[in-house]
């Protein structure tokens, strides 16, 4: 069986039917989409750029999901990271790049970890469902960002709701000129590998996976379950925050009200489709990045509404669910 590839095939088929219905030629649309995603060096670079936050977030969420905590809040954690990174990038202008870049990224990571850890804390301390609290924290982060860029953090010169630009030294170096591909992509690959090693090759990861499958067994094994859940939330939040920092330092160089087009939510799909394996996340991240990137070009060159990509992504998930990809992740409780 090849559920993931079948899922993609089903999704493209459904998308094709919709395209036909709306009077487009599916083959042509998909061909344009393909070219848009991979057809040239620049398009490839753009695809990888879009994959970067997805790979980052997906790797972090893989850790959370394997640890049995449903972090739906990567979007908010990304915002939290972007805010902190921007702040650091604006304030510490005097530092040289080799200090400032790590500092800014760390700031984003820390901020995301705190935002994610907050939901973890509410779960461990008060038993609050993380599904609900992370959704609420998403809204709060987005609203807070809107407040910051229209109020306290608004740029000094213009009156636009955006912050000042971060220092030049805080910007991520580009790696494939003339494209915009920056070192953040390599960073995302590194994070994916690191989270893979953490989850599957380290004793900490063993502990986290045990917590995810059976909290009782974890307690029996002497693992502090609450701390594990908190750590999983902080790690996934931190990596999502890093994604926010990478967006700011690699691409936008300042903070806007809507810094993410929903990477945090796509990241959930990316992690799940890869069966919560960070190495798999690299591929599913690129797949989803390519879908987004290609759909933009599809709209540009074939005038097919790019919202179609949401349908395709959703159907990928649905058919993967139908084909049983996600049943692999089970807990002790579901076994009888």
């Amino acid at each position: 069986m090849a559920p993931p590839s079948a899922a993609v095939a089903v999704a493209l088929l459904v998308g094709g039917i919709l395209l036909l219905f709306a009077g487009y030629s599916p083959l042509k649309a998909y061909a344009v989409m393909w070219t848009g995603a991979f057809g040239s060096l620049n398009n490839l670079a753009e695809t990888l750029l879009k994959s970067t936050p997805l790979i980052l977030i997906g790797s972090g969420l893989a850790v959370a999901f394997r640890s049995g905590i449903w972090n739906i809040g990567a979007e908010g954690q990304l915002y939290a990271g972007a805010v902190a990174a921007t702040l650091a990038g604006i304030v510490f202008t005097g530092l040289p790049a080799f200090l400032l870049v790590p500092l800014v990224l760390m700031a984003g990571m820390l901020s995301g970890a705190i935002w994610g850890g907050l939901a973890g804390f509410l779960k461990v301390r008060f038993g609050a469902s993380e599904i609900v609290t992370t959704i609420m924290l998403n809204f709060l982060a987005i609203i807070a960002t809107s407040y910051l860029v229209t109020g306290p953090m608004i740029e000094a010169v213009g009156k636009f709701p955006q912050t000042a630009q971060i220092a030049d030294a805080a910007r991520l170096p580009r790696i494939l000129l003339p494209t915009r591909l920056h070192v953040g992509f390599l960073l995302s690959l590194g994070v994916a590998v690191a989270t893979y090693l953490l989850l599957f090759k380290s004793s900490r990861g063993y502990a986290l996976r045990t917590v995810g499958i059976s909290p009782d067994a974890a307690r029996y094994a002497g693992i502090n379950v609450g701390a594990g859940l908190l750590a999983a939330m902080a790690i996934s939040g931190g990596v999502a925050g890093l994604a926010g920092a990478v967006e700011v330092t690699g691409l936008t160089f300042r903070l806007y009200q809507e810094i993410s087009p929903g990477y945090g939510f796509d990241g959930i799909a990316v992690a799940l489709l890869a069966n919560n394996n960070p190495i798999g996340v690299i591929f599913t991240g690129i797949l989803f990045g390519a879908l987004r990137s290609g759909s933009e070009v599809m709209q540009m060159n074939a005038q097919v509404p790019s919202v179609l990509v949401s349908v395709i992504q959703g159907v990928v998930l649905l058919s993967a669910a139908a084909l049983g990809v996600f049943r692999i992740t089970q807990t002790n409780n579901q076994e009888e």
Partner: protein
Amino acid sequence: MDPLVIVSFLAAVLAATWRLATPFIYTSLGEVFSERAGVLNIGLEGVMLIGAFTAFSITFFTGSPVWGLAAAMAGGLTCGLLFAFLTVSLKANQIVVGAAFNLVGLGLTSFLYRSIFSGRMETAREYASFSPLEIPLLSRLPFFGEALFQQNLMVYATPFVVLAGAFVLYRTAFGLSVRSTGEHPRTVDAAGLPVGLIRYASVLIGCALAAVGGAYLTVAHTNQFNEGITSGRGFIALAVVVIGRWSPWGAFFISLLFGFFYALQLRLQAVSGITIPYQFLQALPYLLTLVVFVTLRKRADAPSALGVPYKSS
């Protein structure tokens, strides 16, 4: 402030409260059924959008909001059937399917809206909807007059729908089996009741009502559709269910509370002299949800089998 001003201020806020609460009421009532049977649907936002779009387009073509509403329910039922098939029959992960529903709901309605209505933008704006029905005399009552007796049918219907929902859940054999299924499905199985079918039914109720909640936005509260018109209400409804303790009346009153916050937020901004950033007011419902978790200090008594697929042994 002048007391008279405050009274009229509150009266207007109350009137808006019920209207703004209505989509939460329908959607969260449905989700109470779904979760009581053990199925968590985080895809409510997507289902609401599908309901909103279906109601809009059918009303547009037939000229009758009643048909639109019926079509929205049919659309909701279709969503429910798919959701239940995936999560109950195929035992797929409910979070995954819910997340996918949100993606598909937004993408599909936007895509179809453009495909069908792109050439008819101007005309699409005029069609009939459920308009406010004034109840003679009572609507002239001071203070509560407008709030209680000058609403549209779908708003008036809410307490009765909740009453019916509570009746079904607590006073019928079906309701008993729903409450048991979310708690201890194996017992339900052993009692000779079809766990799968009960979950199907509950998910169908949940999605149908979510679609009605969405339809309310396009054929009752306003008469238009635009992409993403639900603006996150599906997620709020999820919070409502939790804070309302998985009970129909709990959902009703928490919806009203959120509706009140929403109304107050819009209203306070317009009052000159109050300079709270509007984002703060927007954040209130979300903050409140977190505060509720902290202050209740008790593990939310969620149905024990919530989110767990049932596998008969």
